[in-house]
C-alpha cells in the first residue's frame, strides 16, 4: 500500500478506460506469458489498449472501466502486471470471474464493483479516496461521494489476510 493510504482508506488518481470487456489479451498480450519477472510484466501492462499506460501510473492509482473487466484467460500475469505498475484497485461495473479471484487470492489489487452511474460520474484524472471498510468512495476532485458493492464475506477475509496463501480457512 502506498504512503498516501491511511488506515482502511486508499487514495490515488484515476485512469479511466470507459469500455466493456477489457480482456486479458490486451491487459497482457500472449507472447509475454512466458515471462515470470513481475517488474518486466509491468512494462507491458495494457499494451493492447494503451502502450503508454505504465508510464502514466503512479503508486496507489486506480483504474476505472466498464463491464466484464479481465475476461478471457486465467493468466495471473494480468493482475500482476497491473499491480506492478502501481494500480491499487480496479473500479468496474463487473469483473470476469477468474480475473476477480486472481486479483484477490494473489493479493495483488482490489477488484471493486461500482454501478454504471458511478462509472459515468468518475473522470480520467480524478483524485479518489476509497474507504474499504465503509464501502465508500470520495471523489476529491469533484467533491462527490459514491458507494461501492461490499465484498462477500469470504472475499473480505482473504483480502484482509493479504491473499489466499496466508488465509486460514475454518473448513
Amino acid at each position, binding site marked *: 500500500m502506498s504512503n498516501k493510504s491511511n488506515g482502511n482508506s486508499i487514495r490515488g488518481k484515476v485512469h479511466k478506460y470507459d469500455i466493456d*470487456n477489457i*480482456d486479458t489479451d490486451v491487459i497482457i498480450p500472449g507472447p509475454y*506469458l*512466458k515471462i515470470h519477472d513481475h517488474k518486466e510484466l509491468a512494462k507491458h501492462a495494457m499494451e*493492447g489498449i494503451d502502450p503508454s499506460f505504465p508510464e502514466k501510473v503512479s503508486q496507489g492509482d486506480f483504474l476505472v472501466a466498464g463491464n466484464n473487466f479481465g475476461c*478471457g*484467460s486465467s493468466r495471473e*500475469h494480468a493482475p500482476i502486471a497491473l499491480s506492478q505498475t502501481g494500480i491499487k484497485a480496479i473500479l468496474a461495473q463487473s469483473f470476469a470471474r477468474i480475473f476477480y479471484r486472481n486479483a484477490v487470492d494473489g493479493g495483488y489489487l482490489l477488484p471493486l464493483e461500482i454501478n454504471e452511474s458511478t462509472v459515468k460520474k468518475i473522470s480520467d484524472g480524478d483524485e479518489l479516496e476509497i474507504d474499504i471498510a465503509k464501502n465508500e468512495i470520495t471523489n476529491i476532485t469533484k467533491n462527490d461521494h459514491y458507494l461501492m458493492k461490499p465484498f462477500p464475506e469470504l472475499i473480505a477475509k482473504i483480502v484482509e489476510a493479504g491473499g489466499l496463501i496466508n488465509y486460514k480457512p475454518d473448513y
Partner: protein
Amino acid sequence: MTITEKILARASGKQKLSPGDVMFAKVDKVMLHDVSGPGVIKVFSEWEKKKGLKLKQIWDPDRVWVAEDHFVPSADRISAENISNLSNFTKQYGITKHFKYGLGQYGICHTLSHEEALVLPGEVYVGGDSHTNTTGAIGAFAAGLGHTDIAYVLMNGQIWFKVPETMLFKIDGIKPDHIMAKDIILKIIGDIGTDGANYKAMQFAGSIMKHLPMEERLTLTNMTTEAGAKNGIIEPDETTYAYLRERTHTKYSPMHGDPDAHYTEVFTYEIEKLEPTVAKPFSPGNISAARDLQGTELNKAYIGSCTGAKLEDLRAAAEILKDRKVKIRTQVLPAAQSIYMKALKEGLINIFMQAGAVVGPPTCGACCGAHMGVLGKDEVCISTTNRNFPGRMGHVESKTYLASPIVVAASAVTGRITDPRDVRN
C-alpha cells in the same frame, strides 16, 4: 440439485447446496502447464522465503498432471528455461504424469484431459488455464483458476467456490452435415453475450446428444469460457462411458442432476435451423452467418488448438480438403501426439499436405499469439480456435475470424470466408 450442485455438494461434504453458497471443495484432479506452472513455482518459493521453511511435499502427486503446451517446442530461451524449471519441479515433488514434448504422448492440456482419461465423471477438476471448462463434457465439474489458486490446491487439496447458477441449453434435432458443435456454441455466445454466463454453469442437453460424439461435446464446453461461465457440463451417458472404456479401466462414480433440479434459465435450439457461423473480430460473440461474410478476403487459415484440432475436427477438415488445394497459407496443428498419430494412420495428414497445408507439432502455438504462425499487421485469419480479441493471434491490428473446422477448410480452399455447402456442391 443440478449435476454441478451435486458434484460440489459431494466434494464439500454437504447434503445440499444452492447457487450462491460459498464453500471449500475437495479437488480430485489438478493440472498445470508451462504458463501456470512457473507461476506456481514462484508462489511456492515466495511461501518458502516468507515462512523460512522448505515445502517438502505436495498434497497428492498422483492427482496432479503437467502439460507442456503453450510455448513448445520451446519457442525461445525463456520458454526453454520454463520447461527445464517445470521438469525440475515435477521431479522434486514426484509428479509422474508430466507429458513432455519429444517424449511420447504430449499435447494441449485440455486435449490430454480427455484423450488420456485424466478426469472422470463426477470429479472436481481444476486447471491453471481458463479453458479447463472443456473437460466438463465428460460429466465432471471442471473450472479454470490462476496459479495462486493452483498452488493452494497443490498444498491443501481443496479450494473455495461459489456455487454457480445453472443455465440449461437444450439443442434438439438431427445435426445436418454442414453444422458442427462450433456453430452451436458460437450461436449461443452470440445470443447471450461474452458475459452472458458470468459466474454461472452452462449445461448442455437435448436430443442431439444421442448422436454427438464426445469430441464435439468438448467443443461446446470448451467455449463456455468465452461466455464467462465458471464451468460447462454435460451429464454422462453411454457416449461418455464408451469413450472412457477405450481409455481407462479406472472406476468412477458418475453424477446426474435430480429430475426436479432448478435451472435459472432454459434455452432451446433446433439444430436444423442453425447456419455455419463465424465470429468476427474482435469478440467471440460478434457472430454472422458464414454466407453473409462470403466476400471477406483472407490471408491465413489455422486449424489448431484444444477447440478445433481434435480427431473429429481433423476428420471434418480433411473431408473438405480431400482432392482440393488451399488458396491461402494453411496450418494444421493436431492437439495431441496421439491425435496426430491417429490422423496419420487414417490418411488425414496426407490429405492436408497434398492440399498444400503445413502440418505442425501439437502446441497452443499461434492460438494465443505465442509462436508457430502468428499474424502480422493487417493479416486476416480464419481459425478453429476460441478467441479473437485484439492481438490474440499476433499483431494488435491483425484480424481473426472464428469458425468450425469445415468452414475454415472451405475458406482455405477459396481464400474467402466460405460456407462448406458452397464448396461441396
